[in-house]
C-alpha cells in the first residue's frame, strides 16, 4: 500500500523527477518528465536534458554520487519540443540497506516564469538606475538630517563622492543649513518645492541651479527621504544677466550722455559767442570744453566695450606706482567722509608695466570702493583702514587692496566674481567685481580674494609686467 502511494506521488509530483544510476543513466522518470523530455530508457541524463554527448561539468548528480550529499544548481534544459526551460535542480542520494549509494534522485522544478520575472525586474531596475545615473541634471536623495544618501553619476562627477555629507556643505560650501531649505520643507509638508540657488562644484565653478524636491514615501505613506533634482540653468541666467546688464548700462549711458551733450553744447555756445564778441579767451575756453567732452565720450565708449567683450586693452607703459597714487586721490575723500582712513603701501621700486592704464585704474577704484563699502557696513568698530599697495617682481606687478571691514564667508567669496551677485543687499549692482575680473582676464593676469568674516578682505591682482602674451610685441620704449 505504502509502495503504491510513493509511486503515485512520484508520478504526479509537479516537478521533473528522475532516478539516475552511477553512469548518469536515467533509470526512472515521472510522468511530467516523460511528457516534456520523451523516452528516457537507456539514455543518459545529459543526453536527454541538455542534448549533450558528454556529462555536464559540475553535474550535481555526479557530486552526490561522490560525496553522498544533496546538491542544488540552476540549469537550463531543452525539452523534446526544443523549448528551453530554466530549472532549479536538487539531487539526493538513494542508499541500499548497507548504506551504499545505489542511485541518485534528481528533482527539477521549472522556474522559467520566476526567472522571467526576475529578469524583467532586473531590467526595470537597471533602466531606472540608468535613468537616475545618466539624466542630465544633479540628483541626490537626502535623509532628515539633509545628508546625501545617494547621488547620481553627474552629481558625483561634479561634486565628488559625497554620500554621507550634508547637502549644504557639498552644494554651498556652508557650515549651516540654508534658509529656507526646500528639502526640509518637503519633509515637513510632503509637497514639491522649487527654489533657485548658486552652487559651487568641487572644481570651484559656480552655477545657477533650479532645485526641485519631492518626497519618497515608505509602504505606509511616511516620508522616508527626499529626492532633490537640480538643473543647471547658468546659460539662461547668463543671458538674462547680459540683458539686464545691458539695460543698466543703457540707463547709465543715457544719463551720462545727456550731461556730456549739455557740456558739448556749452562748449559750442562759448566758441560761437566768443567769435561773435571777438573774445579769444571765451573762444579758447569753449574749445577746451569741446575737446574735454569729446575725450570723455571716447572714454565712455571704450569702457562700454568692456561689457561688450570687444575691447582689447590699450596697452602702454606707465609706472605702477602712479596708478595707485591716482586711485588713492580718487577714493580718499569718499572714504574719509565715512570715517575710513586710506593708507598706501607703495614699493617705489615697483617699476613700469605694460597695461591699459584706464582699465587698471577702473579696476583698482572698483576694488577700493568695495573695500569702503565693506568697512562702512561693519558696525563692530569705528575707524576702519583700507590699504592700497603695489610691488613689483621681474615678471609681474602685484596690486593689493585690503580692508578690515566686514569680510566674506566662503559662499560669498566663491560667488564674488559672478555677474550680478551682490552681497550689498540692494545697494550693489553685482557688476563691479565681474568687470574687475574681466579686466584682469583681458590682461592675462590673476585676481585672488582672501577674506574672513569680521576680519576683512584682501584682493591681490597680479598683472604680467610686459602685458598679455599675444600683445607682447609692444616693446617698452627706451
Amino acid at each position: 500500500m505504502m509502495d503504491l502511494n510513493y509511486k503515485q506521488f512520484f508520478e504526479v509530483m509537479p516537478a521533473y523527477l528522475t532516478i539516475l544510476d552511477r553512469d548518469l543513466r536515467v533509470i526512472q522518470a515521472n510522468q511530467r518528465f516523460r511528457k516534456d523530455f520523451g523516452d528516457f530508457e537507456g539514455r543518459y541524463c545529459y543526453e536527454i536534458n541538455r542534448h549533450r554527448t558528454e556529462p555536464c561539468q559540475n553535474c550535481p548528480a555526479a557530486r552526490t554520487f561522490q560525496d553522498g550529499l544533496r546538491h542544488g544548481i540552476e540549469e537550463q534544459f531543452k525539452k523534446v519540443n526544443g523549448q528551453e526551460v530554466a530549472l532549479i535542480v536538487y539531487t539526493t542520494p538513494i542508499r541500499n540497506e548497507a548504506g551504499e549509494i545505489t542511485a541518485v534522485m534528481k528533482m527539477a522544478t521549472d522556474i522559467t516564469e520566476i526567472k522571467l520575472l526576475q529578469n524583467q525586474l532586473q531590467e526595470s531596475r537597471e533602466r531606472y538606475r540608468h535613468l537616475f545615473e545618466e539624466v542630465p541634471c544633479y540628483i541626490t536623495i537626502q535623509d532628515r538630517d539633509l545628508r546625501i544618501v545617494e547621488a547620481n553619476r553627474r552629481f558625483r562627477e561634479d561634486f565628488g563622492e559625497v554620500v554621507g555629507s550634508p547637502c549644504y556643505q557639498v552644494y554651498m560650501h556652508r557650515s549651516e543649513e540654508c534658509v529656507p531649505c526646500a528639502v526640509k520643507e518637503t519633509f515637513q509638508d510632503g509637497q514639491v518645492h522649487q527654489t533657485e540657488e548658486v552652487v559651487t562644484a568641487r572644481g570651484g565653478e559656480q552655477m545657477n541651479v533650479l532645485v526641485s524636491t519631492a518626497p519618497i514615501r515608505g509602504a505606509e505613506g511616511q516620508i522616508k527621504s527626499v529626492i532633490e533634482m537640480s538643473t543647471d540653468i547658468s546659460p539662461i541666467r547668463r543671458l538674462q544677466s547680459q540683458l539686464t546688464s545691458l539695460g543698466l548700462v543703457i540707463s547709465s549711458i543715457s544719463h551720462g550722455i545727456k550731461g556730456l551733450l549739455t557740456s558739448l553744447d556749452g562748449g559750442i555756445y562759448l566758441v560761437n559767442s566768443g567769435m561773435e564778441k571777438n573774445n579769444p579767451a571765451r573762444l579758447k575756453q569753449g574749445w577746451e570744453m569741446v575737446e574735454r567732452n569729446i575725450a570723455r565720450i571716447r572714454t565712455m565708449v571704450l569702457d562700454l566695450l568692456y561689457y561688450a567683450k570687444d575691447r582689447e586693452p590699450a596697452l602702454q607703459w606707465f609706472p605702477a606706482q602712479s596708478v595707485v597714487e591716482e586711485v588713492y586721490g580718487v577714493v580718499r575723500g569718499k572714504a574719509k567722509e565715512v570715517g575710513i582712513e586710506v593708507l598706501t603701501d607703495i614699493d617705489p621700486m615697483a617699476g613700469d608695466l605694460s597695461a591699459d592704464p584706464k582699465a587698471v585704474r577702473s579696476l583698482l577704484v572698483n576694488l577700493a570702493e568695495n573695500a569702503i563699502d565693506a568697512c562702512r557696513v561693519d558696525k563692530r568698530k569705528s575707524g576702519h583702514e583700507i590699504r592700497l599697495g603695489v610691488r613689483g617682481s621681474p615678471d609681474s606687478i602685484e596690486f593689493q587692496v585690503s580692508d578690515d571691514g566686514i569680510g566674506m564667508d566662503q559662499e560669498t567669496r566663491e560667488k564674488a566674481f559672478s555677474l550680478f551677485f551682490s552681497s550689498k543687499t540692494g545697494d550693489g549692482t553685482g557688476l563691479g567685481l565681474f568687470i574687475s575680473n574681466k579686466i584682469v582676464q583681458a590682461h592675462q593676469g590673476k585676481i585672488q580674494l582672501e577674506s574672513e568674516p569680521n576680519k576683512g578682505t584682501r584682493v591681490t591682482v597680479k598683472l604680467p609686467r610686459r602685458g598679455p602674451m599675444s600683445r607682447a610685441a609692444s616693446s617698452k620704449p627706451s
Partner: protein
Amino acid sequence: MASRKKILIVDDEEDIRTYLSSLLGDQGFETLLAKDGEEAWKQVEANPPDLITLDISMPEKSGIKFYREIKAHERWNTIPVIIVTGVSEDMRKFLSSRHQVPPPEGYLSKPVNREEILTLIQKLTAVP
C-alpha cells in the same frame, strides 16, 4: 537802473556751470555757482537768488534733498526752482506725485534747449 536778477546755478559739472553762467550772463543775469546742495545752501543764505537751476544727481548733497529742504524753508520756499537734469522723465512724475513738496516751477531735461531755458527763466523772474 533796475538791479540784475540773480540766478543760482547748481550742478556738479563744471562745464555745465560755465555754460549756463555764460548763457545767462549774456542775457543780463547775474549768476552764482554751486557744485552741490551744500554749497547751494551757503549761496542762498549769503546771497539770496531770484531763481535756482538745480541738477539732481550730485555726489554730495543731492538735488532732491536740497529741493526738499528749500521748499520746506519758510524764508526761501518762494524762490522759483528749475530742475535741469539728465535723470529720466520718471523723476518729474515722481516729484509731481509727492504731496509733501510742491512741484518745481520748471523741469528741463539735459541737453537743455537754450531758447526754452531762457524763456522760462525770464518768465519766472519777471516783475509782476
